[in-house]
C-alpha cells in the first residue's frame, strides 16, 4: 500500500491561506506577473504520484449522478441534502437483521485515517485522505449464514432531494456489490469522513464504501442498505451496460474499457503540462489483494 506521511499533506488551513493570498494578488494593480503564467511557472519534471489531492479538488470534482452528471453538480446541488436521521439496514442471509443509526456506527467504530488512491473508470485518479474503518468490523455485528456469498450495497433513493434521480440515467437506487471475501478484506473501507472532517455530502455522506483496487463507481455512496446474498448481484452499471461494466471492475491496465483505453490515467489537480501516468494493476494494491483472484481469468471476469 502506498504510504503517506501526514506531513506531506497540505493542511486545509494553510491551503486556504495560500488561496486567499493568491486571490489577494489578483486584486492588486500589478497582479499580472510572469510567474502567474503557467507556461513559466511549471516544472516539467514528472509529477509526484503520492501527493494527496487538495480538499478543494476532492470535494468539487465528483461523479455522483444522483445529483447530476456534471463534475461540479454534486458539490453545487448536494449542500442541502439531509443526512440525519440516517439508518443503515444489514439484512439478507444473516441470522438476525440489524438496523443501525449513523450515530451508533460513529460511536462504535473509531475512524482512522486511510490515505488511498481513487482511480475512476474515466481515466483519472486522486489520492484521498479518507477517515473510516474496515467493512469487516461492521459486518461482525451480524452473524452471516453459509449462503452469504456476496454483499449488495444499496444507496438512498430520494428524488425530492436528489435531482439527478428524476432522470433515468441509471436504474435508481444505485446498487453495487462485492464478493464476500472482497467485502471482508481489510482494505475495503467504510468511509465516514475525509481530511479529518465529516464526510461532505458530495462525497457520499453520511456513509459510503471505498474499495481502492476497483474503479471508483464500485464504491457506492450514501448507503442505506447492506444485503448479504447468495447470488452475484447486478450493479447499476452492469444493468446499464453489461458489456462495458463487469461485476469485478478491478483496476487493470491490460483490460480496456470496450470504448477507451485503461493503460494510463490523469492525476487530478495538475496543470496542462503534467503527463499521464501509467495505471497500475489493482491500482497499486496488488500486494494486498491479488491473492483474492488467483486462478481467475481477469479478462473474462472484468
Amino acid at each position, binding site marked *: 500500500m502506498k504510504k503517506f506521511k501526514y506531513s506531506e499533506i497540505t493542511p486545509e488551513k494553510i491551503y486556504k491561506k495560500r488561496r486567499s493570498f493568491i486571490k489577494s494578488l489578483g486584486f492588486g494593480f500589478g497582479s499580472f506577473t510572469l510567474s*502567474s*503564467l*503557467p*507556461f513559466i511557472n511549471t516544472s516539467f519534471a514528472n509529477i509526484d504520484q503520492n501527493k494527496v489531492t487538495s480538499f478543494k*479538488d476532492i470535494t*468539487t*470534482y465528483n461523479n455522483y*449522478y444522483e445529483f447530476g*452528471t456534471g*463534475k461540479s453538480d454534486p458539490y453545487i446541488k448536494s449542500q442541502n441534502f439531509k443526512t440525519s436521521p440516517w439508518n443503515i439496514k444489514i439484512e439478507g442471509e444473516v441470522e438476525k437483521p440489524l438496523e443501525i443509526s449513523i450515530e451508533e456506527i460513529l460511536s462504535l467504530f473509531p475512524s482512522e485515517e486511510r490515505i488511498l488512491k481513487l482511480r475512476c*473508470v*474515466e481515466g*483519472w485518479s486522486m489520492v484521498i485522505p479518507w477517515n473510516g474503518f474496515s467493512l469487516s468490523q461492521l459486518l461482525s455485528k451480524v452473524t452471516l449464514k453459509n449462503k452469504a456469498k456476496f454483499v449488495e450495497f444499496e444507496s438512498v433513493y430520494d428524488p425530492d432531494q436528489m435531482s439527478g434521480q428524476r432522470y433515468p*440515467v*441509471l436504474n435508481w437506487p444505485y446498487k453495487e456489490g462485492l464478493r464476500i471475501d472482497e467485502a471482508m478484506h481489510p482494505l475495503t473501507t467504510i468511509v465516514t469522513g475525509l481530511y479529518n472532517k465529516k464526510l461532505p455530502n458530495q462525497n457520499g455522506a453520511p456513509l459510503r464504501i471505498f474499495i481502492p483496487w476497483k474503479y471508483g463507481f464500485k464504491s457506492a455512496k450514501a448507503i442505506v442498505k447492506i444485503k448479504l446474498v447468495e447470488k452475484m448481484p447486478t450493479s447499476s452499471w452492469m444493468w*446499464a*451496460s453489461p458489456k462495458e461494466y463487469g461485476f469485478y471492475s478491478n483496476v487493470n491496465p491490460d483490460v*480496456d474499457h470496450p*470504448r*477507451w*483505453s485503461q*493503460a*494510463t490515467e*490523469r492525476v*487530478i*489537480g495538475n*496543470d*496542462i*503540462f503534467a*503527463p*499521464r501516468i501509467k495505471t497500475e494493476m489493482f491500482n497499486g494494491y496488488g500486494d494486498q489483494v491479488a491473492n483474492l483472484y488467483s486462478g481467475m481469468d481477469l479478462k473474462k471476469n472484468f
Partner: protein
Amino acid sequence: MIRYLKPGVFVLSIIPFLLISYQIIFNKLGPEPVKEITHFTGEWTLIFICLTLAMSPLKRLTNSIFWINIRRMLGLFVFFYATLHLLTYVAIDYRFDWEPIINDVIKKKYIYIGFSAWLLLIPLALTSSKKMVKLLKQNWKKLHRLIYIIAIFGSLHFIWLSKTIFFKPLIFLVILIILLLFRVKFKKLSSKV
C-alpha cells in the same frame, strides 16, 4: 451593411478560441484542465458543423444570399476547432506518445471515427478558397457534400465516448438530424418543380 457582417461573423467565431486561451493562460480550467480543453474544442467543432449546415436552410427560409457568403468561412472554423481538438489530444494529453495514440486510433471506435472525420475535413479546407470553387465548378459542390458524412461521424464520436445516455450528445444528434432532414425535404420539393 452586409460588407461588415462577414468580418463580424469572423470575430464572433474566434471568441471561443480567445476564451479557452485566456482560461489556459490564467489557469481557470479546474482540476482536470486537459479534459476541459478537449471537451471545449470538441464541442465547438460540432457547433460549427451545425452552423455550417444551417446556412443553406437559412438561405431558403430568408431568401438572402448572405448565409452562403459566410458558409465557407464557418466551414474553415470547423477545421480550425477540429484541429485544435486533435492537437490537444496528441500534443497535450498524450505528449506525442505515438504508441498509445496509434493503438487508440486502430482499436477504439470513437477515436477512429473522430480521426476519420478530421481527415475528411482536409480536402474541404484545402478547396475552400474562391479560386478552388471556380476551378472545381460542379465538382466543388459534390466534394463538399462530404460535410454530411463528417457531421454524422462527429456526432457518433460524441455519442460513443459518453459513459451513459447524456443530454449533450443527444441534443447534437437531434439538431443534426433536423438539419439533414431539411436537405431531404428540399430535394423532394425541387424535384416536384
